[in-house]
């Protein structure tokens, strides 16, 4: 381990074409001291968010001209428009993260701080000894930092306290008026119809109706958990952290994915309910009447293929937007959220006796 660069990768940042609306349009590039104007490609320092010309960043040795934060440019188009931030602090030329302006610690920096440059924003990061190259800059940044920081008491603790009180009142009021269900004593010899899991697992129970239980109840949840955990290791640019949907394009992707998933989920549920995919295939291919074979083909392979196809279709329907990695993440995470909620809803409100579909207002009573 020699020095801070050993064995650690600098952050990745994306190229952002500048338009007249970009937040950084007209800001001064700290490398060449010229303004960044519309039409030019810019990058933002992942730590202090100061805009640089794309080429100035590379000329400067792929480090920020202000705080020497290293970052490599990801060769793929970023977002054209400015990230839509409502209510971002005004009057701050280049919004800064707290303590981010402390000059990057030189060689002897702790490995962790170097591992990901933004980690240097930890309040504890000490200004490096010998980093006093510009005390004027240090003072300016201290002033900016103070302006961007509020004391925890009362600015954070008061809202926290209030929301805690509201929560306690809300829950108590609800608990006062609505009683928790308690049915008859359990009876292993008498199965209520329908028997349902709690609502947050009804999405899995819904999948169970359409495919092999091992696939629905074990394989798919495991894959979901693993994929969720993998998100931050696939989407590794960090210069749009803190922006809802990463801007206008991400919001568009969100809506496309929402509509797409909603329609497909309903279509598949209805198709299986009224056409009966399993029966259709078994009738078409008589050998599948053998039950273990049918289990493999109609209950495992066909559902898996359909889910893959729907997933690929989602990518195709956002491809025209030239999605960034983040956009792809938004598309699939949204598909997960919408499908998850929708299936839980179908299971709770639309499934009646024998798990047949009913309109909620026509639901026959549960045979307890």
């Amino acid at each position: 381990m020699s020095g801070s660069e050993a064995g650690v990768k600098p952050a990745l940042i994306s190229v952002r074409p500048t338009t007249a609306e970009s937040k950084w349009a007209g800001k001064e590039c700290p490398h060449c001291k010229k303004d960044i104007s519309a039409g030019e490609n810019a990058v933002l320092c992942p730590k202090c968010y100061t805009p640089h010309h794309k080429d100035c960043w590379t000329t400067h040795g792929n480090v920020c001209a202000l705080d020497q934060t290293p970052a490599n440019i990801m060769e793929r188009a970023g977002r054209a428009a400015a990230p839509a931030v409502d209510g971002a602090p005004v009057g701050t030329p280049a919004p800064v993260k707290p303590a981010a302006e402390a000059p990057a610690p030189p060689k002897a920096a702790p490995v962790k701080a170097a591992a990901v440059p933004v980690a240097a924003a930890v309040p504890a990061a000490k200004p490096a000894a010998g980093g006093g190259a510009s005390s004027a800059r240090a003072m300016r940044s201290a002033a900016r930092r103070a302006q961007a920081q509020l004391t925890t008491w009362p600015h954070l603790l008061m809202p926290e306290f209030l929301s805690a009180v509201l929560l306690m009142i809300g829950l108590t009021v609800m608990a006062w008026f609505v009683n928790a269900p308690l049915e008859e004593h359990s009876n292993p010899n008498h199965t209520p119809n329908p028997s349902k899991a709690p609502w947050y697992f009804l999405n899995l129970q819904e999948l169970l109706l359409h495919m092999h239980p091992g696939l629905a109840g074990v394989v798919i949840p495991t894959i979901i958990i693993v994929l969720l955990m993998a998100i931050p290791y696939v989407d590794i640019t960090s210069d749009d952290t803190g922006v809802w949907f990463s801007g206008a394009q991400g919001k568009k992707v969100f809506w496309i994915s929402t509509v797409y998933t909603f329609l497909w989920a309903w279509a598949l549920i209805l198709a299986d309910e009224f056409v009966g995919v399993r029966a259709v295939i078994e009738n078409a291919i008589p050998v599948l009447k053998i039950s273990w074979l049918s289990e493999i083909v109609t209950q495992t392979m066909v559902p898996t293929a359909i889910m893959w196809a729907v997933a690929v279709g989602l990518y195709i329907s956002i491809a025209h937007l030239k999605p960034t990695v983040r956009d792809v993440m938004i598309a699939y995470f949204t598909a997960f959220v919408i499908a998850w909620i929708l299936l839980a809803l179908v299971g709770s409100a639309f499934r009646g006796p024998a798990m047949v579909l009913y309109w909620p207002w026509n639901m026959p009573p549960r045979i307890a």
Partner: protein
Amino acid sequence: MASGTLGQRPPTGAQVWDWLRNGRVFKSIFRYSYPSDRRNRIMTVAKNVFLHLHPSQVPRGGIRVTYTWCLGGLSFMTFLMLTVTGVLLMFYYVPSVTRAYQDIQDLETVVTFGMLMRNIHRWGAHMMVITVFLHMCRVFYTGSYKPPREFNWVVGVILLVLTLLLSFTGYLLPWDQLSFWAVTVGTTIGGAAPIIGKQINFLLLGDFEIGQNTLIRWYTLHVIALPLILSLFLSVHFWRVRQDGGISQPM
């Protein structure tokens, strides 16, 4: 100055207040008076065992309610309320197939505020599933999982799974038809796992069918094991929020 001595005349309200607020007892608990300037406000948070979970200052952008929607905080508050009401329920509930259902009925009918406690615990459990899920959505859509916060996102996913497990293990305890058959459905799903399905099913039930062994397993998981594990991951979660430079903020 603390005026502990009271004159001949009855003390005015202000004197009593001053005596309470600046007397030896109060000062031994809270060393400092109300913090009205920046420096003292910072000290208040930094020196208080409960508050020092927070940084003493926070970036302006990170505390907008429309940014976090307080969802992490609400999840935590709900967890605390569940702990308190859960302890109260434990005073009355015995995890035995011959008593459990009767104990719940007693809670609802003869125990003072028993019904209220049970209701708060039940609705709180649903609420926590919702707030944790929404918190995950907030974190995702604001891109707050990005470096350097990758690992805290992973810890978060574990917390989500633990929250679901806590909720589900509690579901069995009333031992009524609803809980019995919900758990039957749930454990049958586990039993459908490829290759080791039968073993998983036995592990979940402690038997070949739901019975006393199942109840004691799920009870122990619900009141001790899972809350402890969740608290452990929660500590890591909160610690990492600070280690990763405080919560992310809009640029």
